[in-house]
């Protein structure tokens, strides 16, 4: 039996999901055994794998979040494009079966799909219906725009709610997705799709205005910053915060943990911006196949990916986790099953994504993106702490972020 090592970052209910997938696959055949290993958060497992690669010890499959995409792509020789793996493994692989926004993101300029989109998410809006009711708001009418969110927040606060609004993934939800949603650039060169010459531009008036609003909310106490990454995720299902923006992948946890009625809605936007709402950007992670493995192993990987892309498997995963169904077939299957009707809001993520994208909204693919996210976190934290004005913070973030981009460009010119 050939073992296939799979490093991932799925914890909690998602971890169970990953284990179940492996189990199903392992039980479906005898030749291969997928061994999933939780290696910590997205950044942790990615760096662990890179270290392992340098030491000649990389796993076969690695789950990398979308932020690491550019880094993975740039690492010629370290990875083996999925398309190739599938071909080598003799598995039929049709790139066109995938949702365009997703497939496009993980596809190289030459049209080859590089990684397998296992769990793509996007940014959506969660709100606590019980809290809305208590604040005298209509629980069935989700706030669609930022002005509505702010108004609702004020009411929630007035009704005694300590944390009206919060967000996880600050950069992803409030800058990256926010920009795409308003069809505005986050970085030049089509957000980096055009090459490593890209530079950040998110200190434009629109983003600035938004952060000024958030800063005001923070000052009023209607927006509470809960920390970096997904640190805020907990505060919604716990009932602490009444509204939040976060990953659609949080659905698994919310549906399990929330002891109150909740609603899911699209990401808020500014109605006065032309072209808004456009589409939100992809998040979540994809599976990368590392180079230098035996043919046998690649065969196994191909088998496994083939299993994962089956419409029923996809659909079940989508229902269970809130991650997007990545093939059109799976989306259809889910829709036909009546799931979206039964659980209103679960289609929000899909509908946000299954739209025609523009050059400005296809996604963001930048080198050293992990550091840039950290820089954005560091700088925006200064806003919530009242130490910097939004303008200062965004300008500084752009400046520091661009230094990273320069470095990346230099280190990867070969």
């Amino acid at each position, binding site marked *: 039996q050939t073992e296939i090592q799979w490093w991932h970052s799925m914890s909690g209910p998602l971890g169970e999901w990953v284990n179940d997938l492996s189990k199903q696959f392992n039980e479906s055949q005898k030749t291969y055994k997928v061994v999933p290993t939780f290696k*910590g958060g997205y950044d942790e497992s990615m760096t662990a794998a890179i270290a392992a690669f340098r030491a000649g010890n990389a796993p076969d499959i690695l789950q990398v979040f979308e932020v690491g995409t550019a880094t993975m792509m740039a690492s010629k020789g370290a990875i083996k494009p999925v398309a190739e793996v599938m071909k080598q493994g003799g598995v039929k692989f049709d790139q066109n079966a995938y949702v365009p926004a997703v497939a496009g993101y993980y596809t190289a300029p030459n049209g080859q799909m590089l990684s397998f989109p296992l769990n793509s998410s996007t940014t959506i809006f969660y709100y606590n219906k019980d809290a809305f009711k208590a604040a005298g708001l209509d629980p069935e009418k989700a706030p669609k725009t930022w002005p509505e969110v702010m108004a609702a927040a004020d009411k929630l606060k007035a009704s005694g709610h300590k944390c009206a609004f919060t967000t*996880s993934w600050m950069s992803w939800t409030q800058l990256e997705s926010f920009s795409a949603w308003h069809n505005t650039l986050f970085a030049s060169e089509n957000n980096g799709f055009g090459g490593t010459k890209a530079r950040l531009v998110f200190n434009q008036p629109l983003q600035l205005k938004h952060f000024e609003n958030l800063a005001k909310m923070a000052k009023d106490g209607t927006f509470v910053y809960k920390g970096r990454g997904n640190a805020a995720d*907990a505060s919604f299902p716990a009932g602490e915060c009444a509204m939040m923006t976060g990953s659609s992948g949080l659905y698994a946890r919310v549906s399990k943990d929330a002891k109150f009625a909740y609603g899911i809605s699209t990401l808020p936007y500014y109605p006065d911006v032309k072209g808004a709402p456009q589409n939100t950007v992809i998040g979540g992670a994809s599976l990368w196949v590392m180079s230098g493995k035996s043919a046998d192993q690649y065969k196994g990987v191909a088998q496994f990916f083939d299993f994962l892309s089956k419409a029923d498997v996809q659909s079940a995963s989508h229902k269970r986790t809130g991650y997007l169904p990545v093939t059109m077939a799976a989306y259809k299957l889910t829709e036909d099953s009546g799931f979206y009707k039964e659980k209103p809001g679960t289609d929000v993520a899909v509908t946000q994504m299954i739209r025609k994208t523009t050059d400005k909204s296809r996604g963001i693919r930048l080198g050293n993106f992990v550091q840039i996210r950290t820089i954005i976190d560091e700088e925006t934290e200064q806003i919530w702490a009242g130490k910097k004005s939004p303008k200062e913070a965004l300008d500084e973030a752009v400046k520091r972020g661009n230094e990273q981009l320069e470095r990346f460009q230099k280190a990867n010119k070969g």
Partner: protein
Amino acid sequence: MVERRPGLTILSHIVLLLGIALVVFPIYLAFVASTHTRDEILKVPMPITPGAHMIENYSAALLGTETQGAKVVVGRMMWVSFVTAMVIAVGKIAISLLSAFAIVYFRFPFKKLVFWMIFVTLMLPVEVRILPTYKVLADLNMLNTYAGLTVPLIASATATFLFRQFFLSVPDELVEAARIDGAGPMRFFKDILVPLSQTSIAALFVIQFIYGWNQYLWPLLATTTEDMYPIVIGIKRMIATGDAAVDWNIVMATAILALVPPSIVVILMQRWFVKGLVDTEK
């Protein structure tokens, strides 16, 4: 003390009790948390007296729970930690005893250099050289092995230095007596020096056992399979995601379990620990 001042004595007790309260509070709280359900803990403020779910939390921790993404079996992790800590402690003591013996009781070329080479390793904490070290380990095929978890950490400038200090304080007459009695170097080492170093050995055992047990960064890299994770990693992994998803009750039960072996070592051996350190160190 010289004067009889009951006031001062009472004050001493008060200060010490306060100190203990401060020092023990986090652990007490962890214990309390380990006896409630997750929801009870997440209610703000959490209860500060023990609850009724101790047994189920601890058995969940010990046997592993499927609620975590990765199945975390504390029993296995404790065993890994224990083996690692033991090997590190014993190994460090053994090789340090030998090298300190060579350095103190022999004259050989480059002795100073050797001493400095050992001493200099103090300056190379794992954090500073972790990636290349990891590469060496991988090249030697030692990932996911006890050897990989332990050998790279086994060199010890501290222990060598401590033993050196201690050996220097062993009266010359003892060697002389042993030589007149006909003992050669290894015989002297085995029959006289090692038994005499008992307290230092005990002290170092405590220090190094704790050091081994508490390793975090190194095992994080040196192991990639779950059955080789030590307990400290296990706990950190359990809280790798945001607050609420964390099963704080299980985490805290695990934390308490993880505390037990090193605490036992420290408490049982505290007498030698202090004595060994102080007698030789100063």
